[in-house]
Every structure is written in C-alpha cells, then in structure tokens.
C-alpha cells in the first residue's frame, strides 16, 4: 500500500473510532493517546478497524511504533 492510501485508511479509521476528531487534528506528529485522547479501548478498536479495512494486523509488541499518526501511517504502508 502506498503512503497516500495508508494515510487515507488511517484517517478513516480514526474518524470511525473518534468521530469528534476532525481532519485538521490529524497532524502527522499527533500522538494518538495524548493528543487525540484515544484511551486503551479506543486504541484497540482502532487497531481492529485498521485490520478490517487494510488487512494489516498490528501485534501488541508493535504498539509503540504506531503511537503517532505518522507512525501508524508508515506502519500500515510498510505492512499492507
């Protein structure tokens, strides 16, 4: 998957999990937990939605790598 598709998929997934987060909040460096205020259940749901929509399954051990929007985008792009 190229980065643009990955970014789109990530934005859509975040929009689904946290509808109040607008596109303008999706700064690449935004941290999912602290800046977008996703709690652990939201985050789990996000990982689930990403798996459903892109087929990229993020194991728990890789969670630190996907702590930011950019981190998640490049992970999805690299594994999709």
């Amino acid at each position, binding site marked *: 998957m190229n980065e643009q598709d990955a970014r789109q998929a990530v934005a859509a997934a975040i929009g*689904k999990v*946290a*509808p*109040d987060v607008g596109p303008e909040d999706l700064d690449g460096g935004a941290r999912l*937990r*602290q800046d977008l*205020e996703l*709690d*652990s*259940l939201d985050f*789990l*749901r996000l*990982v*689930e939605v990403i*798996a459903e929509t892109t087929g990229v*399954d*993020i*194991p*728990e*051990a890789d969670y630190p790598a996907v702590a930011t929007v950019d981190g998640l985008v490049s992970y999805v792009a690299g594994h999709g």
Partner: protein
Amino acid sequence: MTEFRMPSLGADMEHGKVVEWLVKPGDYVHKGDLVAAVDTDKTVMDIESFEEGVVAEFLVEVGDTVDVGTPIARITATPAEVPPPEAPARHREPGAKVPPPVRHLAHTLGVDVGRISGSGPGGEVVRADVERAAAAHATEAAGEAAAPAEGPEAPAPAEATRVRSSPLARRLAAELGVDLRGVSGTGPGGAVTEDDVLSAVPPKETRTETPAAAAPSEAPGPEPAPAPKEAAPEEAAARRKQPTAAGGKADSLRQAVGALMSRSKKEIPHYYLSTTLDLAAAMAWMQGVNRERPVSSRLVPSALLLKATALAAKEVPEMNGFFAKGAFQPSSAVHLGVAVALRHGGLVAPALHDADTLALDQLMDQLRDLVDRARAGRLQRAEMADPTITVTNQGDLGVESVFGVIYPPQVAMVGFGKVLEQPWAHNGMLGIRHASIATLSADHRVSDGLRGGRFLARIDELLQAPDKL
C-alpha cells in the same frame, strides 16, 4: 391499567426528559422490554418496562422533561378476568384461523380480527398481524388527536399535524446534520420543533423552505451545532454520539457531576490510601495471551485491574454497597462502576453487573460494550442506577495516580494510574517491572484504613495470579 412512571436512574436524578419512544401505542410489552430513551443531566438511557401489557397511550411527549415518579405512559395490563395469553393456547381449537391468544390481543388492542388478513401458516392471523393493525390505528388516531390541541402554538402550518412530533424534527435534524439535543426547543414544554432544528443549521446549509426561521445565531450552547459532515450516512453511530455530549449537554453534565461531587465531599468523610501494584506477572501473562489472539479478542490491562478489584470487593464487604439513611448496607453482588470519560467532557460511571463472577474475556467484552454505549449515550437504567463500587482508570490518559471522589451513596472509589515500567527491588536485586499505582478513596463512616489497606493489598495479591482471574 398501570401508569408507567419516570424511573429514578441514579441517586442524584430529579427529573428526566423523554427523548425517544422505543414502543408505540398498541405495542405489547413484556417486563424488561425497552420502552423509552430518557435523557438525564448526565446521559441518555434506555428504560425498561416493569409491567407486562399493552401500551395504551403516552402521557408525555418526546422532549418533555418531568420529575421522577411522574406517569409518562399508560400500560394496560392483561385484564385479570381474562386468562393470560399463553394459557388458552392449550385449548386451541384445531383449525381455528385466529388462535385465542391472538384474538385476546386483538380484543385488548381494539382490533377487529375479521378485518385483517393473516400472514401465518394457512392464513392464520398471528400476533404480528394484530400488532401491525393496532399500530396503524394508533398512528392515525395520534395524528388526529394531536392537531387541534397543539394548533395554537404551532409556529408553522407544516407542524400543525403534530407540533411536538419529534420524529419529524428528528428526521429533519438527521438529514441536516443538526444536533437535536443541543437545540433549545421553543415548542410547548420546550419541545424541539422543525423551526428550532432549521434555525440551528448554519446559514449556508439551511434549506430554502423556511426563510422566516430564526437566525442561526440562536443556536444554543457554547459549541456550534455539529457540521453536516458528521451526519454522513455511514456515521449513524457517530451521530448518536454527538447529541449526548456536545453543546448544552456537556454543560448540564458538568453541572450534574459538580453537584454530585459537592454532595460527596460535604457528606462523606473520605480517607485515602495508595499502593504500587506489581504488574510484572499480569502484564507478561496478558502479552502472552494477546500474542495468540486476533485484535478483536485482545485484552487490555484495565480488564485485569477491574476483575481483581471486583474479586477484592467481594472479599472486603465494607467497600461494596451503599450508605443510606444513616447506615451502611453492604451489597452481596458486586456491580462495578467504571468511570468513562465522554469525548466532549464530563464522565459517567455505569456498572458492569456481577463483575466478580465474569470470566476475564466476558468482562473484557462487556467493558468494550459498556464504554461504547456510554459514549453513544445508550446506557440502560440499571447500569446507571446501581454500581456498588466504582473504579476510575486514569492511567489511559497518562497520569500516575488518581484519588477519586466517592459517588454517593457508594462508599469506595478505586483509582488506577498509568501502567509503567519501573525500577523494582526484589530479593536484593534491582530489576525493571510493569507497575501501576492503585488508590482507594473510602468512606470513614463505614471502614477505616486497616480494612481499606487490606482491600488494596488484596487487589495486588490477586494480580499475581492473572491466569486465575
């Protein structure tokens, strides 16, 4: 004939607003069937019927706010002189086109069975046929009845048929992406009208048919009405979220939380304890389990912490129950309240029922479901009304410890901080372990530090054998 009253959905609830009827006149409801969605100051909850019978009429309209105990609907109980619907079935005459229970239902609903066609096997008239016919009658009747009564207050001819017909306003709101519950109503009893909905739409979005509608600046609340983008078709769930938390809702929720917490601090002599939980075993076990699982069934640390808390609460009864009328009433069941932060501010703390008896996976499933519904404003009455002890898990938001304020009439509040790796001395060796700070705020009228300490220590002990949770 019984009156269905506005139930109390929590110790602090004084009134509630009917925001949606989940049944219609003529529907047959069983005990436990959901009847209406009620908006308290805190959240929207589905309330269930305590009676079995037929919904005869609504006594309040959607949008009406009434005190707890006010009759909101009449339910016609199955008349005593007539056998209950199930009983006559045994005597059913072979070949009868209308089974007695169905005939009975038809009679109760005032439907002429001779005039409806059956959709059951062999053209038999079944319950659904009768209910459909009754509903059709009821809808017509409601339309006719509402018109004259509401006429004078109707701001627009289009509304004359049913001024407080919230379905119409709601549908419009949904189409236009307007947060209905953030709109202040100008209709009778504060009901939200179509015009109210239209006036809440930003100017460029306003459809043309009501140029006379009030200026958009009248949109209430500190936050603007949600933009229509949030009402995209696939976002039905999201749309539900908005009304609950946005705008005026956040304000009233903040007030409700403030009032309750003031009462707590005034009445409850809190004492506070804190201990650091050794989560090495729990985290290692959880990571091992999660590695084998698809995302959908993975666990989060909260699930383990909640389960350990529930088990400990069962063992230390002074933490679990209610303080009311000057005395402590311990609870034999552990209904674990879980503080859920709402996205627009404020929080609710609905209960995981019998949390001590749930297997960890069950608890995890129910936790996810509960949090989803809390955020979407779809909690049920019992979940809000009866937690026996509450947990606040601030760790997710990054703080190391949280000292909660007890929710009256409960007597204890447990707080968990962030799970972090810490240097840990053990058997004369220094290592790195996962740990989290657990705190207890408890009611000194009921327990003292010794019991409270025992309770916290027990949580730590239970977490050392995570596979047994």
